[in-house]
């Protein structure tokens, strides 16, 4: 709680207290801790003098501002038409198997969350997935598994 207060205070100092500051603040919180908890939103609302329902409404409008617990690494596989045609289903199947979770879920060790997302503008190089902020394109199921393994290794160290 203390840490969270400090993070939000720092972000408010950085971005200011106007309504325009709302999005950058929310984005930075998500960058730091992957998702927005009720207490985060309440605090931001209080600092910016907005209604908490309003801030929650704003957050839920954006796919990338998660309001449910997420793992340390969030994988988003593009589900839009081009990636669909180039085989996003196989990618998802492979990831579900290797992570042992379904789309929408988070692994027990809280390391990975698997989600789908809308077009990311890489249609010419589908299928595409995003892990946190990094794009991986021209995927095959094997490549996708390999990439995830690398993240697993990284988190061990």
């Amino acid at each position, binding site marked *: 709680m203390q840490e969270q207060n400090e993070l939000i205070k720092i972000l408010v100092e950085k971005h200011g207290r106007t309504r325009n500051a709302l999005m950058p603040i929310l984005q930075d919180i998500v960058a730091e801790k992957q998702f927005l908890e009720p207490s985060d939103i309440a605090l931001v609302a209080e600092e910016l003098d907005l*209604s*908490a*329902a309003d801030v*929650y*409404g704003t957050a839920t409008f954006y796919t990338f501002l998660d309001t449910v617990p997420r793992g340390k690494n969030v994988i988003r596989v593009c589900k839009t038409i081009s990636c669909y045609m180039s085989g996003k289903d196989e990618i998802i199947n492979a990831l579900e198997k290797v992570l042992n979770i379904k789309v929408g879920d988070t692994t027990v060790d809280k390391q990975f969350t698997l989600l789908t997302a809308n077009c990311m503008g890489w249609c010419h190089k589908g299928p595409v997935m995003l892990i946190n902020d990094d794009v991986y394109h021209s995927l095959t199921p094997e490549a996708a598994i390999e990439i995830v393994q690398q993240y697993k290794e990284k988190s061990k160290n």
Partner: protein
Amino acid sequence: MAKALINLKINDIPITVEEGTTILDAAKKLNIKIPTLCDHPDLSVAGNCRVCVVEVKGARYLQAACATPVAEGMEIYTNSQTVRQSRKHVIELLLSEHNADCTSCSRNSKCELQDLAAEYHIFDRVLLDILDPENLIADISSPAIKKDISKCIHCQRCVRTCEELQYVSALAVIGKGAEQHIGTFFDYPLNEVVCTNCGQCVLHCPTGALTERNYVEEVWDAINDPTKHVVVQTAPAVRVAIGEELGFAYGTRVTGKMVTALKRLGFDSVLDTDFTADLTILEEGTELLTRLKRALVDKDPEVKIPMFTSCSPGWIKFMEHLYPEMLGHLSTCKSPQQMFGAVAKTYYAQKKGINSKDMIVVSVMPCTAKKYEAQRPEMRSSGYQDVDYVLTTRELATMIKQAGIDFMSLPESDYDPLMGESSGAGVIFGATGGVMEAALRTAYEIVTGREVPFKNLEITPVRGFDGIKEATIKIEGTKPEWSFLEGVELKVAVAHELANANKLVRAIKEGKLHYHFIEIMTCPGGCLGGGGQPYPVSWEIRQMRAQGIYSEDENLPLRKSHDNPEVMQLYEEYLGQPNSHKAHELLHTHYFPRKKYLN
């Protein structure tokens, strides 16, 4: 500077209106009706439902009449084939994701969507039904408000109401696309968020998505239970509004008929909240004078000035959530409804020789927040829940209809004794400024021994619908025991709608404004515009109800709370003095700080 005039034609009829007028309002002037759903005269323009579309000659698309200002030379058609078909299509689309089970809906026969569906003959469901079954579970966590999003048409009138009128924003548009809905902070149940239970969202919702929690059946059961003595109290603002549901014009005073109807429904005793409104004035007026004495004479740093009135339970919850550090400024007086319950189950029960446990107290209120208030755990001074059931004006109208009573032809009767007498001061509690006026009529006289220096006791500066009103009254010629008030200019303020209240509280907190006494009412216009009053609502309608209230005051033989003989009898026989120990036990309460966003 006068606004420029614009000439245009609607359905080939020429008309001239001021610049900035919307097509909708211009059409109204010609008595041409354009249907609307998201538009409401109390709220900002949303323009999201598209049911008000009209054809504008030369424009490529149909235009939303509520959101489009007129322009010179415009030629508008409100009833072309294209217009009619698009409107019909809009209504069909709304119904395709709507749980249109009208017979089991509490807005049945009073619903704006249903009216349009009937008007446009939407007999077949031509579109796929895309109602999400998950949405069929209504939120009934609040004792006052029911939220059923399967009946919601996303017009956002509630969101604008809660934000623009009430500065609460308990409701917001959550999610996007197919998942978009009206929800609360993290979609928590209504009783866990900042909601004040004011019911303004209910009053402004065009459909059955937001309604009051209905207690009609419970009240019928109580009436029909031979072991119970059931008393009913009616709030001041009910008498000038219930007629609207039963065939009378807006704002008609129907006090005597309402009393007869209540007797015919089978209540054992029909009593008046106005009685405890008068009692409130004696308690609150005395509290104010005591606070002033402590502040001015004893220089007690603990005493909180200004003192705020406390009869509006939505306002109380607003303060508990948003200004918990200022709760000491609230008068400790309970609302008249709760004073009534506490006195009924003690004093009245004793006088009648009834055991309080065999009594049921029913309230008829213009208010949904009173449903919540009655269930607050501290409202049990009699040892039982002081007020058992709270009905809105609308629910009582339903009971009168169910009983087959022809309201219009009823004879008039008087309230029953012991707690049925009231003064005009009690009646005007129903309008914004009324509590202030009533309090001044009494406090001034206590202090000076003379009537307030206003013609016919009408303290006009605190009347009317300005959001924030102020008045200064110079106290002169005090009685010896009040000499510390000699020459004091008593500064008072009045606000209605919580957004206005918020402005006042904020300015006071920041030290920018200074008053002695402030009246706050949660709802626009005061209780007469309460969340439990008949649909629809507008400032014209509120105005007519206010006229009803002030004419009732004018016509009553007693105009001042301290002249109410039954109130005096209550003090003599039971309570002793205003603010006595006993009075504190029964008539005063305390408040609880709540979190702003997380309960």
